[in-house]
């Protein structure tokens, strides 16, 4: 039985250490998913947490300036400057922006909201709505017929 106690103790230590690491990891890297609307409503609270914001890139808003790239995200696709639900984003991460990141693409920006109301992204992911498979409800003109052979 002694062996099993020793074994159990080692297992407990290993699991304990891993759980501790996991807790630390969560605190360090947790990111809240927010919509642009919600970010606006969060007020000062928005500046204290890491956020991940989902939106559509405004046509013609992408501006490169050295290593920095700025652009504007909208809640809904195809909106122009008039749309009030918009978020100015500045990206200054190390990794190059993905090739799928372009006008009208759906993008996810990770980062923090600055004092100035500009979102400082450290990571940007993008899916290009036209290229990857469209969401089912968006397949309007290209609606596949099911094999109704009745």
């Amino acid at each position, binding site marked *: 039985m002694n*062996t*099993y106690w*020793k*074994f159990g103790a*080692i*297992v407990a230590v*290993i*699991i304990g*250490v*891993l759980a501790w*690491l*996991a807790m*630390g*990891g*969560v605190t*360090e*890297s*947790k*990111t*809240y*998913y927010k919509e642009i609307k919600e970010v606006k409503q969060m007020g000062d609270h928005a500046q204290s947490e890491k956020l*991940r914001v*989902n939106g559509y890139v405004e046509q013609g808003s992408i*501006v*490169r*300036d*050295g*290593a920095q790239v700025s652009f504007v995200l909208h809640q809904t696709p195809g909106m122009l400057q008039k749309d009030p639900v918009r978020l100015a984003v500045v990206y200054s991460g*190390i*990794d*190059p*922006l*993905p*090739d*799928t990141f*372009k006008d009208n693409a759906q993008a*996810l920006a*990770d980062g923090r909201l600055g004092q100035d109301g500009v979102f400082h992204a450290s*990571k940007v*992911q993008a*899916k*290009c709505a*036209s*290229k*990857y*498979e*469209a*969401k*089912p409800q968006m397949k309007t*003109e*290209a*609606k*596949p*017929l*099911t*094999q109704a*052979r009745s």
Partner: protein
Amino acid sequence: MENIGALSILLAFCFAIYAVVASVTGRLKKNSFLIVSGQRAVYSVWLLLTVAAGLLIYSLLKGDFRLAYVAAHTDSSMKTIYKFTAWWGGQEGSLLLWSWLLATYSAIVVFMNRRKFRDMMPWVTSVLMTTEAFFLTLIAFVLSPFGVLQAGRGNIVEGVGQGLNPLLQYWTMVIHPPMLYLGYVGFTVPFAFAMGSLITRQPGDAWIHTTRRWTIVTWLFQSAGILLGQGWAYAVLGWGGYWAWDPVENASLLPWITATAFLHSVMMQEKKGMMKVWNMVLISGTFFLCIFGTFLTRSGVVSSVHAFAQSPIGKYFVIFLAVGIAATVILILERLKYLKSEARLESVISRESSFMFNNLILVASCFAVLWGTMFPVISEAVTGEKISVDAPFFNRINIPIGLALIFLTGIGPLIAWRRSSLESLKRAFLIPTIAGVALMALLAILGAYEHPFALVSFGLCMFVTATIVSEFWKGASAIRVKNGIGFIPAAIELTHRNTRRYGGYLVHMGIVFMFIGYTGAAFNQDITKEVAPGGNTDVGHYNLHIANIEQGENDTYAWQRLAVDVSRNGSALGTLYPERRLYKASQQPTSEVSIRRRLNEDFYINFAGLSADNKRAVIQAYVFPLVSWIWIGFWVLAFGTIVCLIPNKVRLSYARTQVVGVAEKHATVEN
């Protein structure tokens, strides 16, 4: 023609259901005609799906743009090979690939084992065909690969199609998905045998012996799939990363981890009759993680850069997983008494316990990755807020786990079964420990102390390498002296005598090489700069001179190319040509990075685009130390795995602890 394809899928679905019903009824009623007809139904499923797949491929190659799938994933200007690979470029096609592979595996399994295990095989067949029927439900009723565009109904429209995502038009992407699928699908076979063995109350481990090769081959496919994915990400995505802990990547890693644990813990069952329940749990876990992985990739439940859209198939997966897991758990609990351990753990310092720690750590890692991947879903369910965790979380847990694992890789194979004396430990590990510590000291002096994890990793890699080399050295030296042959022939002879053991060492060596490659990432260097033609910039000890920017176009895409002269310490190393392309069909830009690959480090340059005034090129240049060792490690791993599959020169038999009255009732093998 699309009607024939869809009809084949529908018929295959019916035959799969029939195979399940016939096998189970035949088995219960002891009606061998029904059992045989169930087996034939399996072959029919394969035949029908081959017809369906053949038709889809034909439509893709011919460019039949009436079909929604063909129009969405090919265009007429694509190379033939990419038209072919569009088979798995999208949701419907890849589900067809899944089904076809499973049908192929099932047909082979049934054909090879139809005369053996007469009591178990009908159950194996029914488990395989139940899974098959599930996937066929998806492509027969929910997402048909043969859907016709409304515009194309009745007449053939002239179209060009939208083209395959150009990012996927790269050689590793040609084989990455099928490799991964061969892995995913393959674990259905050992799972089916495990279940068959449980249902028929087989006390022995016939299922393990029978499926050992399946498991190893499948594991190799999955490793290849993951590594090809890494190779693709490294060479195509433009930031030189090979792993980002993205949900889809994690989905492929999860079953790989449990399968690795399984490959190790079956040895405990084969040699000691221990961990029987655990093995059942691991193989079931692996199977369900494979299904879960397909679910993650295919349903869009967590957002991913791999961006497969939300689709209606998620709920089907949830139902299948829930029912399958519940059934498996109940079955294992019900049969617990047939899975009693035949030996006990005798010492903490023993081969047994090293296997257990290896398993514990692997499963912990799997759990952590699963937890992190599903964190948004879990947190939303619990707190109502969707929270995600990313790379720092995964790294924080998995770096220590990786180090512990590599340590066990060195310890495990050399430590004695049952218990180990201090004396024998000293004999086995003194030199490797000295080698590892010496390397760490040397690297620390050279300045690597700033990266403690990297330092430990290199030390452990040295330690493991020394243990493996010493194993080959000891064995081969003995043979060399006895047979009077050279060292290399002696090492080959040694490996041939016990391919599992020495093949396993080679696999471990491959893993060590991969760890060396991963550790190199601690020393990466990068810059992002705008440079006008004629300008210079530096990264690390490299100097870059931008010679010129060229542009042009062909049928498929328009391109801009940079010529960059690279030199180091004043000596020219050649010119690299990173390129940007804009694909016409999809209006998708891509970057074609240029890499100077060397064993010590890669020099990697990406042309990110032009500056706002169109006069300067935005370049991103990186130095990636040791990254080539990841790919080298993979080839060593693959070679070692193949060695494991070669039969031994002389059949070895192991003395095994047996409990009277249990081990006698081994599976009846009829010939």
